[in-house]
């Protein structure tokens, strides 16, 4: 009779557990749409995220459509027009002209192209490499972990700017070597992030459950663990886009990145400093462009973090 107290509730029909009547909700399809809508709603309520996303989208569109939207596409190259040099911002030249009479707006838009290309190439290499190494180190442990994580420590101990200067001195400084050198350093941060998350997830019961169910290592790494890293990866990658663009601009400001006449933002800032403060627009306009892109990615990253944090709490 000791069972009485536990089993008094009638097991009527197919109503499992004494819970809210979930079955009365609309069926699965509309609900799935509304889940996506919920995410979008929460995103759209977050002003920083929306501003960041807007800046990023506008920059990318401008960079992609540069030949169509810029007023003087020919000014990208080594064009010289001394009659038009150092013209202040006007309706004809929104950002003024530089020391050889080229339209700065045109060159800034093309400069964004290079900055974004740099960010996408560097992160396009660093994110997959770092993620794979982090997953392997965190899941397998043992000597795999020791080798990968000590390698990461070594890479992190290399002063980035010094390595880049060395690379630029040995090879002729150009955009490609900058990209390669940046990618060679950048994967470490992603490896550490993914390693930390994987370590935490490995001891979770759902990973053990997958193991006891006979799932393959590939399945556990890419179907069970990786989906739980996506939000952290998205935030980190978005913030990193800003940092890579800033680093790239700093390097080319020092003369280590893209070389003239390529319209790189950092190079343009450096070129304009010779004519400060009288012809300030030559430096300030491309400088502001760097600021705006980096700000856009940072705002987007912060907004994504807020968005995912809310979801995690829920």
């Amino acid at each position, binding site marked *: 009779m000791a069972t009485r107290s536990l089993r008094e509730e009638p097991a009527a029909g197919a109503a499992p557990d004494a819970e809210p009547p979930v079955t009365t909700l609309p*069926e699965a399809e509309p609900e799935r749409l509304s889940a996506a809508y919920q995410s979008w709603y929460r995103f759209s309520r977050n002003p920083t995220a929306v501003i960041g996303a807007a800046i990023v989208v506008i920059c990318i569109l401008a960079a992609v459509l540069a030949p169509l939207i810029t007023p003087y596409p020919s000014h990208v190259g080594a064009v010289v027009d001394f009659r038009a040099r150092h013209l202040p911002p006007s309706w004809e030249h929104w950002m003024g002209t530089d020391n050889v009479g080229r339209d700065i707006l045109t060159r800034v838009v093309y400069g964004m192209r290079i900055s974004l290309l740099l960010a996408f190439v560097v992160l396009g290499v660093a994110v997959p490499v770092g993620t794979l190494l982090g997953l392997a180190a965190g899941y397998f442990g043992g000597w795999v972990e020791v080798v990968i994580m000590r390698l990461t420590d070594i890479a992190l101990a290399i002063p980035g700017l010094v390595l880049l200067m060395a690379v630029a001195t040995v090879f002729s400084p150009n955009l490609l070597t900058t990209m390669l050198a940046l990618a060679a350093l950048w994967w470490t941060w992603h490896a550490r992030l993914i390693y930390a998350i994987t370590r935490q997830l490995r001891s979770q019961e759902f990973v053990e459950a997958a193991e006891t169910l006979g799932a393959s290592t590939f399945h556990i790494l890419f179907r069970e663990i990786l989906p739980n890293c996506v939000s952290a990866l998205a935030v980190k990658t978005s913030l990193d886009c800003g940092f890579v663009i800033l680093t790239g601009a700093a390097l080319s400001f020092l003369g280590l990145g893209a070389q003239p006449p390529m319209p790189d933002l950092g190079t343009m800032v450096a070129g304009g400093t010779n004519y400060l403060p009288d012809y300030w627009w030559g430096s300030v306009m491309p400088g502001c462009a760097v600021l705006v892109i980096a700000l856009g990615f940072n705002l987007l990253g912060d907004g994504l973090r807020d968005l995912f944090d809310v979801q995690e709490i829920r």
Partner: protein
Amino acid sequence: MTRPLLEAVNLAKHYPVKSPLGFKTGAVRAVDGVSFSIPEGGIYGLAGESGSGKSTIARMIMGLTTPTSGALLLGGRDIAGQAGRRAYRSKVQMVFQNPGSSLNPRRSIGQSIAVPLSGLSRRARAARIDELLGMVQLPASYARRYPHELSGGQRQRVAIARALACAPRLLVLDEPTSALDVSVQAKIIDLLTELGRELNLTFLFISHDLSLMRNFAEEVGVLYLGKLVETGPTAEVFARPRHAYTRLLLASVPVISDEEAALRPQVPLIDGEMPTAEQLIAMEQR
């Protein structure tokens, strides 16, 4: 009953204790010389409080850790070496303690259940998922939901469905109800009893909850500090506990009715906390 499905023979798992310099100074005997056998179709309960070695035994059966000594036999064959294989996985499955963490939050219910069904065609898989959800009395539409949309009891039903996906013969239940409300616990136990009868399953039920144990298990073993201190048919152990620790465990079950209080053995009790692993090693060395 028939011949044993699972047998543990002198099973032991010791974890080395190292000094800060890395020298081995002793061993934590998480499981120490445990022997029991579960007949085909039987329900064996392992009782004991946290730290008694219950979960270590479950992990050894699932091949997540290897025994230090002794053996586990499934249908008379040693599981050492075959525990990681797919053939073994399809015979022995486990329901974990906390359904909140045993289901991947980023995978839908259907995807979670389908993990061991990768060999089937798309349509056969969907049909099997429907069937499994039906077995645990959940609507088929739940396959498209995510764990956070379900209650604790529903999640545990999903975990049971997943464990049943590859049609196992032995189901290890590691505290399957301890994370759930009392009202839901009884329903999960009812469901398991029913499934056990329908599918002719054998259960190893691990729990510290003796009232559940009394309702569910046919035979119990009481674990204390890695050793099996008492074993026998449930009714007998509960009515006439021989070991002081079993009495202590029984006395700590809260009772609701006078009827239940009358069932409780009236014996003098030992008092105090269970010793920790470090204390035990210190006692041995003295």
